[in-house]
């Protein structure tokens, strides 16, 4: 626990601090970049892009070794991965647009073929006796061992550029995500916006390769956006909330993995993000599971209350135990089921409402108003006082309620 607190406050050593800051920045960039992907409903394209980085890593290594180096330049490896990811992305787009195959089939094909090719390349590279190939397989699941200042700088600069680009392009990206047809009619080049969206995702993937690895980076792109969606109904807030959730997951995950030996950083970060997702799924207001079930219970109680009062109006006996419980709890009926004075008053009010609604539906053919008759909404919420007075005038004198 103490080790965890040390790591959280960046007191656990230079390397751990570097990893925590790098992971937080990466999480923020991934969260924002992934938001539009999620809103465009193309989350899985990022999986294809991530897997398509692997052959690029291998080929870049081979080229650098052939040129006489050790093949260890991070910039070189990342450039290679970016290039092959871009080719993979264009292939997905080409298959989806130019052939009869749907995008999911294109994603499956590109993902597996590129990944398979990458694994073959890495296997061949292991048998070479030139260059320093140890550590290339870290690109699969990420590694924080020996993270350098340069690695953190790449994440910081790359991440900042990605977030800035998203902010600049937020309007066309929102338009295309919400209504691509309308965007195109407005003159937005939807294909280029889509490519920009994917290009930014690819950039995050590439800068995150070393830390989180290509298999798990997808989680960091998608989970924060999905989690943020639980908490807000505005695009821009989803964007920044997803960035914050990604950043917190990265920071806390890195600190946690630094606090105990042999805890893998990438997977821990993803698990923290998943925990935030699970919490949101349960607890978020309005969209959360708990809120939905509470809302349903409240609705159910209102229905029972209304039905019970209408039964009182008609002088019918009430048998439903929940209805009886609700009416008793509110003091609307006595223990033996007979209406109290308060119950009679409420029942009379509801009976009057029902008759007013009858009139309202006859007078106002406008369905957008009368369509709101659900038997529950008080008429005062739908019509103004003078309108209700008009209904009452048409109702004629008060009629006795059948008690």
């Amino acid at each position, binding site marked *: 626990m103490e080790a965890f607190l040390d790591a959280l406050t960046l007191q656990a050593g230079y390397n751990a601090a570097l990893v925590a800051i790098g992971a937080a920045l990466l999480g923020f960039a991934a969260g924002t970049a992934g938001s539009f992907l999620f*809103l465009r*409903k193309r989350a899985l394209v990022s999986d294809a892009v991530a897997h398509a980085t692997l052959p690029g890593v291998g080929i870049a290594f081979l080229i650098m070794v052939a040129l006489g180096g050790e093949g260890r330049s991070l910039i070189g490896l990342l450039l290679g991965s970016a290039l092959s990811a871009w080719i993979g992305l264009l292939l997905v787009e080409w298959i989806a647009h130019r052939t009869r195959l749907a995008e999911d089939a294109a994603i499956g094909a590109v993902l597996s073929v590129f990944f398979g090719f990458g694994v073959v390349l890495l296997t061949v590279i292991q048998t070479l006796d030139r260059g320093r190939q140890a550590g290339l397989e870290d690109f699969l699941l990420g590694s924080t061992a020996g993270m350098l200042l340069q690695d953190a700088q790449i994440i910081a600069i790359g991440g900042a550029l990605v977030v800035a680009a998203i902010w*600049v*392009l937020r*309007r*066309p990206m*929102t*338009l295309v*995500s*919400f*209504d691509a*047809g*309308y965007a*195109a*009619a*407005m*003159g*937005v080049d939807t294909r280029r916006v889509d490519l920009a969206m994917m290009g930014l995702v690819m950039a995050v993937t590439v800068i995150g390769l070393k830390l989180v690895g290509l298999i798990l980076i997808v989680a960091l792109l998608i989970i924060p956006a999905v989690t943020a*969606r639980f908490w*807000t*109904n*505005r*695009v821009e*807030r*989803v964007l920044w909330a997803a960035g914050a959730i990604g950043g917190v997951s990265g920071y806390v995950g890195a600190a946690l993995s630094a606090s105990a030996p042999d805890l893998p950083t990438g997977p821990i970060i993803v698990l923290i993000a998943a925990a935030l997702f699970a919490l949101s799924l349960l607890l978020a207001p309005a969209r959360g599971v708990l809120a939905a079930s509470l809302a349903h219970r409240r609705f159910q109680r209102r229905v029972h209350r209304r039905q019970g009062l209408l039964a009182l109006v008609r002088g019918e006996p009430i048998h439903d135990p929940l209805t009886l419980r609700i009416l008793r709890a509110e003091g609307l009926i006595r223990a033996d089921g007979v209406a109290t004075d308060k119950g009679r008053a409420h029942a009379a009010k509801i009976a009057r409402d029902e008759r007013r609604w009858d009139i309202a539906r006859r007078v106002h*053919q*406008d*369905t*957008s108003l009368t*369509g709101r008759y659900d038997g529950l909404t008080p008429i005062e919420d739908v019509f103004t006082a003078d309108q209700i007075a008009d209904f009452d005038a048409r109702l004629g004198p008060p009629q006795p309620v059948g008690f």
Partner: protein
Amino acid sequence: MPEVLTLAARDGQATGPEADPSSPLALRGLTVSYGEKPALFSVDATFPAGAMSAIIGPNGAGKSTLLKASLGLIPRVSGQVTVFGQPLAAARDRIAYVPQRASVDWDFPTTVIDVVLMGRYRKLGLFGRVSRAERALATEALARVGMDAFAGRQIGQLSGGQQQRVFLARALAQEADLYLLDEPFAGVDAATERAIIDLLKELKAQGKSVIAVHHDLSTVTAYFDHVFLVNVRAMAEGPVDTTFTPSALAETYGGRLAATQLADLALTVG
């Protein structure tokens, strides 16, 4: 059938008569195809300015396709589109498009006012600030469709008719001259239908042009001035009084319109 069948032209080479520059939307030899099967074949059309025009035809006749191809949303195999005498790209600012309601995900995280503000994005560009004036313009567009009280609502909470009104408000916010609507009355309540038609007539009174894909034959004469009948090919085009006739409809719909429906229409067309 059109008097002269224009030859299908490749890559926008003009073949038919010159487009009328005053027409808000003129099509020459428009052919669109999904695979090898043309959805529209060599369609010529000249929609009149300052009028309400209906695009009418049976299901699968290419009505929506015609609208989408006119807007460049789907590629043309051949043919030309001119908007107010200009090529499409030069006239984007003058067109507002109202797509089918079902074409978007209504659970998208956005509010009514934000959707209407999307109509301003072209003028705002990447960096333009959403000023108070822009917001006022969007609110006014909402007021014109009777939805100003709903500005802050999440769009998923709207009824079908209200969604259609929001789409219309977004188009209004564009301050365009030509309004292209894809089945604006599909699945909306009677009050919304009336609100929309009143608004469209108001636009017409302001000199704007309205072109709508329309499926309800019984309201054509009440709502529109001009009809364009299409069934893959252009079948007939002209003022409602002279063109929207039982014989033209019978030809457009083939056997798909029951004789009783035609008889009913004959009464409304008079």
